[in-house]
């Protein structure tokens, strides 16, 4: 299969701190990979290198065959082809839900207001929020904000979606609605890389789980295998911690 995202010997330093240590891995088109691991293990850093929110010091990352960290790449155009969903939603508070979604199609792909509006309404409908088109982010619950954020990321029709702890900032009762949207996306064949500790989600839709610790992927397995019988001692410790909480 053709790899959609390929990490090749990625090294990332914060000063003297080696945040990513020679990470090599790949994600096939249509594959859903869940990345988990203790905090500080480098999972957020890794996902943020994919659309170059973080620079790397060594190795190469390619998305759909394009070298992301090459000098002179049309970064804006490249980024518009990758959907990114943040832990804190990062909706634009001065714009309505609809305008949040319409912004990039109009500014980046030059769609007309009519087309962008049609697209945004369809996306809001897809995340179950057609009735909230004119609401401002602060008028929406956390779960609703994150669903709008997912719709916003989908507006550029990216072949890849990255999720950086999309449910970590949510109250427990709102996690389900966001995961539901993500599951639908996964079933529709979207290539997804998700940093999350939602084991139920991983079991249900992930093809593989990567377990990261101290800047490395130390275990890579099918979710059933991973959750039932983790191999690495640190993965065992992490999973038992996760269950007791």
């Amino acid at each position, binding site marked *: 299969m053709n790899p959609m995202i390929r990490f090749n010997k990625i090294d990332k330093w*914060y000063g003297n701190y080696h945040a990513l240590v020679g990470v090599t891995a790949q994600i096939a088109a249509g594959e859903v990979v869940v990345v988990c691991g203790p*905090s*500080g293990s480098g999972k*957020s*850093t890794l996902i*943020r290198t994919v*659309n170059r*929110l*973080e*620079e790397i010091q060594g190795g190469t990352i390619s998305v759909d065959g394009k070298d992301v960290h090459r000098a002179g790449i049309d970064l*804006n*155009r*490249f*980024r*518009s*082809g*990758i959907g*990114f969903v*943040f*832990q*804190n*939603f*990062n*909706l*634009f*508070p*001065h714009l309505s839900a609809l305008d949040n979604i319409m*912004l*990039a199609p109009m*500014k*980046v792909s030059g769609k007309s207001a009519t087309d962008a509006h049609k697209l945004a309404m369809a996306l809001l409908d897809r995340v179950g929020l057609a009735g909230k088109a004119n609401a401002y*982010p*602060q008028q929406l619950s956390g779960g609703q*904000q994150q669903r709008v*954020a997912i719709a*916003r*990321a989908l*507006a*550029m029709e990216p072949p890849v979606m990255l999720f950086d702890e999309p449910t*970590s*900032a949510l109250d427990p009762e709102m996690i389900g609605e966001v995961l539901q949207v993500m599951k639908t996306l996964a079933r529709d064949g979207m290539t997804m890389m998700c940093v999350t500790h939602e084991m139920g989600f991983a079991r249900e839709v992930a093809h593989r789980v990567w377990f990261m610790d101290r800047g490395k992927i130390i275990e890579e397995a099918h979710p059933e295998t991973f959750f039932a019988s983790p191999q690495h001692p640190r993965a065992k410790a992490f999973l038992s911690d996760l269950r007791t909480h």
Partner: protein
Amino acid sequence: MLDILKTYGTLLLVGSYPNGPIGGLVLTLVLAVLGVSLAFPLSVGLALCRISPYTALRVPSTVIVYCVRGVPLIMLVFWSYFMVPVLIGRPVSAFTTLLVTLVIYQAAYMSEIVRAGIEALPLGQVEAARSLGLSYSQTMRDVVLPQSLFNMLPSLLSQFVSTIKETSIGYVISVQELTFSASQVNASLLVRPFEVYLILSLTYFIVCLSLTQAAHFLERRLVARRSTSHHTVPHESYDPV
């Protein structure tokens, strides 16, 4: 005191208008409004240069801001009084001199407000915009500035208040604003300086106090608005995009 107001009220309010040029409190307000509104776009430009990734923009703008902020306003008045005519090759009115000075001075101060306002915005806003594929300038224009300028409205209003007070420096180059009018009144009365200058002080005080109160009111409204918006959770890294 009331009799002074009765006799000289119009002079303090509008100067020698309609028989001569407009002056007094009206001119003071005109200067402040023009000063701030011309300085504002300049200050946004300066602020954007100050945070620019390009050294060629960052260094000169920083030097300008530091120089202007590092000298007393009256030095700037003298400089424009003597420099502007030399630069443009013809004499300019005292009004223009003062206006140019106020614009330069306020642009430097307001650029620091604008810069702080931009930097106070959560980094996630820029990251979200850039992740969607928006360019740096699109991010500034469509995401960062609309939010930060709105948030800094109270600070900009208090900057307007200090500009009102700063226009009084026009007295030294004979701009017929409020302070100049008051000193004219004093010169014709000769023996009642305390009353004249009390009226002058009270006028500034009342105008500025009401505007300051308005700024406080605005600020409370904005704080209330902001506290209902999303909370920020610290991220692992704070690397700029």
